[in-house]
């Protein structure tokens, strides 16, 4: 199965929520959609699922055009941010409802639910209500429901954003085991770039309803196509020097090194991050962030420099990368 999106757009009133979106997701590939709130990433997912109407462009599942097909006919497995579990039904009943609606025979239903509960390791929680489950367990029920759909495409709408940071990290391998190994296209919407980098094969960065760049996490980090992406991807954030001659020069904090010659700086403050430390510096070029090992001694008078090859150049007006 290949999911292909061509020139996709959605307009509400006069405003384009999503516009000119092109993306191809292959079998077993996971593409993360990232971007600030309101950039259109969830809207894109809803268009693929068939929950919202497409204004222009096409969506293909393999050769089949599904642009205007009913949601139910698309065979997508979606995990909602809120999990969308019915509060008055037990875990089993929640899972059963979809099967029942699709006309699966009762004996088959029981068997498939049982197998699924084993897979997501919730056998002992089969008869409790969602309210009695922990956040992580609810998420696994929502995943189980999507898996039971036996879909052609998996759509994950911020599946972990309601969980705390530690649980999120614990669930990543789980997500890999359950969904990413299924040899189906997966689209994962998230506002957490760490999650995107950890899970996705490729990342699509959206801004104002348009994709700015689709690339592997490494490519995105080392060769951001726009200043927006350079700032959006990578924490601590990239340093942007004062524009000169219409060019913005940006340097990653870890590319900065102490030097005897270089830009003289004043130390403003310092964050200790365990494996590294982050220095906030004030320079004639504007404020700088410098990331270095905690083993490094900070010199009395600070001069910093960096290799020319670590510089990223962007057009100040358009924000587009310059060669």
């Amino acid at each position, binding site marked *: 199965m290949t999911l292909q999106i061509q020139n996709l757009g959605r307009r509400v009133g006069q405003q384009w929520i999503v516009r000119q979106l092109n993306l191809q997701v292959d079998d077993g590939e996971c593409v993360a959609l990232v971007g600030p709130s309101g950039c259109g990433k969830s809207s894109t997912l809803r268009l693929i699922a068939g*929950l919202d109407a497409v204004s222009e462009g096409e969506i293909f599942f393999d050769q089949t055009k599904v642009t205007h097909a009913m*949601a139910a006919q698309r065979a997508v497995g979606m995990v909602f941010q809120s999990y*969308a579990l019915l*509060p*008055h039904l037990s875990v089993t009943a929640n899972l059963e*409802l*979809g099967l029942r*609606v699709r006309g699966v025979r009762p004996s088959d239903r029981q068997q498939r639910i049982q197998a699924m509960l084993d897979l997501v390791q919730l056998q002992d929680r089969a008869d409790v*209500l969602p309210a009695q489950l922990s956040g992580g367990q609810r998420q696994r029920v929502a995943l189980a429901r999507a898996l039971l759909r036996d879909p052609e495409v998996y759509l994950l709408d911020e599946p972990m954003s309601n969980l705390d940071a530690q649980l999120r990290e614990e669930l990543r391998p789980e997500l890999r085991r359950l969904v990413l190994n299924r040899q189906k296209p997966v689209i994962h919407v998230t506002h957490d770039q760490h999650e995107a980098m950890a899970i996705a094969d490729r990342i699509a960065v959206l801004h104002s309803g348009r994709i700015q760049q689709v690339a592997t996490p490494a490519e995105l980090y080392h060769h951001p196509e726009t200043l927006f992406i350079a700032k959006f991807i990578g924490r601590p954030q990239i340093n942007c020097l004062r524009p000169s001659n219409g060019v913005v020069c940006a340097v990653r904090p870890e590319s900065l090194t102490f030097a005897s010659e270089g830009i003289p700086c004043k130390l403003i403050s310092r964050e200790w991050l365990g494996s590294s430390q982050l220095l906030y510096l004030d320079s004639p070029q504007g404020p700088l962030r410098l990331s270095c090992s905690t083993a490094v001694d900070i010199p009395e008078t600070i001069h910093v420099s960096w290799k020319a090859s670590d510089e990223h150049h962007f057009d100040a007006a358009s924000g587009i990368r310059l060669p």
Partner: protein
Amino acid sequence: MIALLLVPALLLLVVVFVGPLFRYAWLSFHADSVITGLIAISNGGANWLRLVQDQRYWQDLFQTLRFAGVSVGLELVLALLIALLLDQRWRGRDVVRTLALIPWALPTTVMALGWRWIFNTPYGPVDHLTKIIGLGSLNILGDPSLTWMATVWADVWKTTPFAALILLAGLQTIPGDLYEALRLEGGNALICLRRITLPLLRPYILLALLFRLAQAFGVFDLIQVLTGGGPASSTESIALYAYWNALRFLDFGYSATIIMASFILISLICVIAWIALQLIIPTHSKSRGAVSS
């Protein structure tokens, strides 16, 4: 100490509700009328015996139950339809939402007077209409088999907005992604209604049902103004009968007995309605309507 804050509310409740209730309970075992010189004289269970043998009481009880059952039943169905409609997005919805409340906002006596003129024979528009469509002059407020329907009609017209408002509030607590998740599986509107809306709306339906049943069972002003209980006491409600016994016949003992009997009955009806609704809309929810977050 915090319990002290409840005192004003409790005091009010005691003064306007619990107090009179005990007074009525006590009075129902006493003769207290013009004959006794308006002095309460204990007469054992004589009032209650009279109630059991009172043909008119049983007739009024039947009429009251018929009125309450039919109008509340109709109201809930209509209110659910209206609430579902007002929950959808369409042009002019907000205007309609406000306009829909007008019947409910009108004082009952005013709207009852209005309906009395509308149903008037031969000058009302309804009479005009029935003549046009060939049914002839029906004399709606003069024919006992029709008049009770006119009272139901007026009550449904007035109180459906109230029930719709409660149900609409309930509908708005149901998260949209529950419907979307079911839509992805192929659930149509009917399945969504049965599997999501009705179960999650149950506490609100229950609330509307209990409010309206208790209110309809005690109906007074609407009938007093629209028909005066007539013709031939065919629309007389229990409240009307109790009122006449107390304030027309000045028989306070017997009136108190009627009111006590109604109180016991309406309490029973509400309990039964509550249990029945649990059976009609089954869920095994322990946290009623609570939405997982």
